[in-house]
């Protein structure tokens, strides 16, 4: 079996660092309390019956929002928010990218939480959405601040790994590779993965199950 890296010749360009760097995200916040919020809740499976991601924002947390009129995504005070503040193990379960796609299309540009599922954090990164991790008390303070003053502007900085909201400043970290990707503008790896395809072929051809044992 041999690779057919016909993609190679067609790579348009490396991402332009000037336009694709993601260092600072500023905007109002949206506090979403609760642990272990899975991607089935973020985007119910019946809305995966689609062949594009368009319009998914309309179904974000649909069942939770219907059962709870006071759900933060129903609350007009938080409409137009940019930073989502969540608790523990956010985005667990299904690997559906439809979940972060819905959030992105709803205007969310960064998420701050106590912890994330690995797949969700990676999927969000592929869309240019950093998932910052902060300690539970910092998350609690951020959520309280936003609930008290929904108009407060938060400033999340990927490079300095801080979230600033008025007089409140908290440390919020990212996995080093994701952080460097956002800062350098190389958070979408497709072109990098295609850049040196001869090396890919060399590794593949060396694998016993490809060379026929």
């Amino acid at each position: 079996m041999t690779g057919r890296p016909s993609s190679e010749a067609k790579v348009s360009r490396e991402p332009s660092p000037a336009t694709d760097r993601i260092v600072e995200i500023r905007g109002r916040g949206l506090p979403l309390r609760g642990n272990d919020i899975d991607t089935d809740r973020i985007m119910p499976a019946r809305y995966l019956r689609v062949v594009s991601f368009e319009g998914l924002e309309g179904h974000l947390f649909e069942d939770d929002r219907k059962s709870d009129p006071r759900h933060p995504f129903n609350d007009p005070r938080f409409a137009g928010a940019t930073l989502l503040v969540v608790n523990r193990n956010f985005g667990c379960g299904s690997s559906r990218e439809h979940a972060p796609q819905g959030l992105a299309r709803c205007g969310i540009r960064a998420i701050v939480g106590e912890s994330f599922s690995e797949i969700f954090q990676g999927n969000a990164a592929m869309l240019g959405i950093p998932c910052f991790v902060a300690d539970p008390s910092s998350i609690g303070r951020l959520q309280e601040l936003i609930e008290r003053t929904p108009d407060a502007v938060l400033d999340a900085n990927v490079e300095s790994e801080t979230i600033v909201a008025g007089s409140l400043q908290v440390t919020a970290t990212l996995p080093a590779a994701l952080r460097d990707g956002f800062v350098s503008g190389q958070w979408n790896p497709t072109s990098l993965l295609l850049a040196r395809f001869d090396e890919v072929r060399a590794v593949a051809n060396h694998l016993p199950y490809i060379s026929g044992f």
Partner: protein
Amino acid sequence: MPQTLFHKVWNAHSVRTLPSGQTQLFVGLHLVHEVTSPQAFDMLRQHGLNVAYPDRTFATVDHIVPTDSRRRPFIDLMAEEMTTALERNCREFGISLWSPDTPEQGIVHVIGPALGLTQPGMTIACGDSHTSTHGAVGAIAFGIGTSQVRDVLASQCLAMEPMKVRRIDVNGRLAAGVYAKDVILTIIRRLGVQGGVGYAYEYGGSTIDRMTIEERMTVCNMSIEGGARAGYVNPDDTTFAFLRGRRFAPQGDAFDRAVSWWRKLASDPGAPYDDRVEIDASTIEPTVTWGINPGQSVSISESIPGSADEEALAFMGFERGRRVQGTRIDVAFIGSCTNGRLSDLEEAARIVRGHHVAPHVKALVVPGSNAVAREAEARGLHEVFRAAGFEWRGAGCSMCLGMNTDRLEGRQVCASSSNRNFKGRQGSPTGRTLLMSPAMVAAAAVAGEVADVRQMLPAPEEVPA
């Protein structure tokens, strides 16, 4: 220096270190299904990219396929559109596809190992979190999102960071009526739904050693429910016997050469682990979930703990201190990539044989693949289930996630052999899922309520040879 299987496989597939410090990892097998791929193919077209290794890419339809009638066009128009889109994409990019009308079609995690596509030492990716299933034969297999599906299609590679490895030893004998599903539910309960984040789980110990590959698949399948993106078992003689003669497995002399490579991949004695956990199999009882995540479970003889989460109790309508045993059920579902294989159906059939589903229960069996359905039918299992009042359906994901028309209604309670009891998971926003082994689902279907399968096991002399 001794190494784990994870590190050996990772190193063999590492292309280079990317500027971010991530590894460019070659993906040996890419599995594709209809739900998470259409947008990825569109992205390829948008950027003028092609599929780098179409011969290492295989597709099937599983999530939205109807399980009642396979007649095309499907009555469900969206199912038809998604199936057609996958057919068109696979044709355009030269990828093998098993459509619903082919004998090979089935849940991607059931057919991969059954066809011998899944082999020890491979890296395997699929736009589906239950890809961890394939670790049962000693592969490093994990779920990815659609943008990553695009990357694998375009380059056969992913940008990733290595995982830590936690060794989970399960030692001792499982009692009759206790299954692989109970083992993994117990592991998740012990380590938590987030405990595995950042880890690959390496399962071992005498209990795992004695398990069949199908049982190991059940265990590895739910690694992700414990937060671990990958889970695996070191390849051994059971693995090699399972693979021999399978369609895509190496044949003849190549098989023997493959076995000698596969043997060397197993974790070395003294390999370093980032963490170790030991579980005594003799303490595991039939296990059932009471909450809204797979870590919220109890043994059948146990009461819901005092520390139980309020939100979960309110959603499920349970109270602290009561047992799940005796809970009236509305639906019984046997199937899914966790427990939709032949041995699962055989074990469930043992329980229902000669009994009938309680009158108020809707019960269905959804084989994991067309091949599983054929094998089960050859053994007469469909007749056993039908005689007992179960519906015998076509292969697919079905009521595990309710993407086709098999869904819970309202607040129905479902005894389910699937993998997730999330709010709304089985298609009704207020539907309630109780996860358990297929044998426990069979017992619940007959009793009309959650029951202890140990009290319903046929006496040894009644067990068919």
